């Protein structure tokens, strides 16, 4: 009789996965509907659903104008932006974690968020490269910061875990300092703006803000799904992946672009929300296991639900005041990061 570890690899398997995805989709719909109803003026969920339904069917004639404005013009885009930002940042974190084979990777810890913020602020305040737009500036900033982090952290073609984290921290500081400086130089009274880029916010989102990050997240999510098998191979080792017929360098470049794109499009409308990409994929892996073909869709949905709920918390813990969303994600994420750092010290050689 041999002694074998009888623990099952991960809790959710087989049909459980389909139930989980369905459950998360329903949870997301409910969380959005409930969250739209909560605020200075509370609107019952049934009314929220009625207003949204009226807009979707184009039959808005019978709606109370005030409720309509609160629900459709102000709160729905805000809550949906929280959902899109949560999904996008979770996928960005997942891309980076697979890319460097390190669970500590996240757009925030790697300085990508700060780089995107700086890029966006440079375009907004100085008018330099105004042609590329705020989103373009954020993308340039995020790509550049990722590139710097990678160049600093590699020795002879191999990425060093500790160097990645340290380079990320340094780039993040630099980006934040630059953002703060620019905002103060341009308009000293705009302290709120600085806070927006440093801590993130989904308050004041409009429907127009939603399009670019939503499309970027959907397209990148689909593309990632098509690369799930290759990402699995890469997660087990670069040489293993090469032996399995994966063009490792090409995949890594594409993952880098995907992470930059996701982070940039989210940051350009929601500011620097940190740690979502760290917490969500890790929690998802604990539940569904390491297979990317499962981790990607569940992270997308789970990230959306997570940030909708966090946004709800920022509006309810200190009513009627609102707290910046980034304070909450950092409060949840930073201890999580430290826990991972302790638990996974072995991978940080």
């Amino acid at each position: 009789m041999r002694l074998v570890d009888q623990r099952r690899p991960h809790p959710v398997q087989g049909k459980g996965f389909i139930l989980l995805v369905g459950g998360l989709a329903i949870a997301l719909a409910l969380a959005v509907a409930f969250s739209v109803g909560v605020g200075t003026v509370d609107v019952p969920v049934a009314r929220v659903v009625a207003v949204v339904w009226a807009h979707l069917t184009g039959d808005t004639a019978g709606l109370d104008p005030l409720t309509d404005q609160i629900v459709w013009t102000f709160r729905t885009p805000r809550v949906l932006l929280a959902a899109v930002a949560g999904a996008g940042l979770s996928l960005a974190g997942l891309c980076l974690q697979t890319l460097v084979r390190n669970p500590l990777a996240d757009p925030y810890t790697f300085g990508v968020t700060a780089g995107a913020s700086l890029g966006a602020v440079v375009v907004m305040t100085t008018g330099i490269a105004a042609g590329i737009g705020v989103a373009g500036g954020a993308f340039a900033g995020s790509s550049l910061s990722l590139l710097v982090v990678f160049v600093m952290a590699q020795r002879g073609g191999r990425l060093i875990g500790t160097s990645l984290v340290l380079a990320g921290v340094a780039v993040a500081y630099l980006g934040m300092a630059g953002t703060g400086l620019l905002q103060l130089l341009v308009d000293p009274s705009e302290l709120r703006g600085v806070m927006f880029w440093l801590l993130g916010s989904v308050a004041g989102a409009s429907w127009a803000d939603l399009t670019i990050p939503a499309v970027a997240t959907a397209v990148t999510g689909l593309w990632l799904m098509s690369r799930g098998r290759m990402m699995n191979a890469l997660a087990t080792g670069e040489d293993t992946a090469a032996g399995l017929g994966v063009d490792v360098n090409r995949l890594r470049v594409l993952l880098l672009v995907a992470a930059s794109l996701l982070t940039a499009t989210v940051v350009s409308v929601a500011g620097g929300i940190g740690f979502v990409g760290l917490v969500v994929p890790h929690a998802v892996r604990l539940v569904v296991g390491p297979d990317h073909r499962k981790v990607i869709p569940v992270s997308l949905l789970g990230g959306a639900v997570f940030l909708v709920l966090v946004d709800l918390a920022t509006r309810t813990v200190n009513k009627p005041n609102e707290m910046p969303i980034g304070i909450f994600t950092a409060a949840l994420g930073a201890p999580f990061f430290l826990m991972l750092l302790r638990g996974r010290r072995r991978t940080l050689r």
Partner: protein
Amino acid sequence: MKIQIEDLSVMIDDLPILGDVSVEVETGTVTGLIGPNGSGKSTLLRCVYRALKPVRGSVHIGESDVWRGNAREAGRRTAVVVQDHDLDNGFSVEETVLMGRTPHKGILERDNADDRDIVRDALDRVGMAWAARRVFTRLSGGERQRVLVARALAQKTPVLLLDEPTNHLDIGAQLGLLGLVRELGLTTVVALHDLDHATTYCDRLVLLRSGRVLAAGVPSEVLEPERVAEVFGVRSAIVPHPLTGRPHLVTANQ
């Protein structure tokens, strides 16, 4: 499928690692790569499985040039068991072996019954079917290596490469694994540290030193006592094994 390596040269950080290495491996034979640490065994293998691009020279598997074709095609011809020590992910044994199907599957194509049959057969062949549902990293070193061989089998390639597969295994697991590799009948190249294992389990040997081929041929020719003394600094003799009668290489300090 025949492997032809011609005039291969590799530089890493401006340091020459391999210089003008040429090796031929006949279909269905086992070739051992031997040499001191840092002689370029792993580097040579990495060039064959497309993990490291040589600066000069070519690698042909059958008729096709590995570095001219794409990665996916290479993955259908060559399977590899690499030395990975930080496989700190939670994949199960079954999932690990299923990865062998990667080069055969289109994007978004799901694993089907055929794939699962192939995985089961591969695990049966290496004697690891009992562990299909276990977490890969919780197996012993010898069991893990067997699972990685199963993954290579699931890849259904004519060529198998192994980079020091017996490292950190107990002696029973070492001999079991090498015996298994021999039985598979694939065109095999295996980097080995143990000269006696190389003598016993390989048809031909290629001896590397400082990135160059010092000798190639059948084990008894390559491992002449003078050459072993020169390269490895030990005295040696090839003697019949008292139990099996097969030739074995024994060594003693100089």
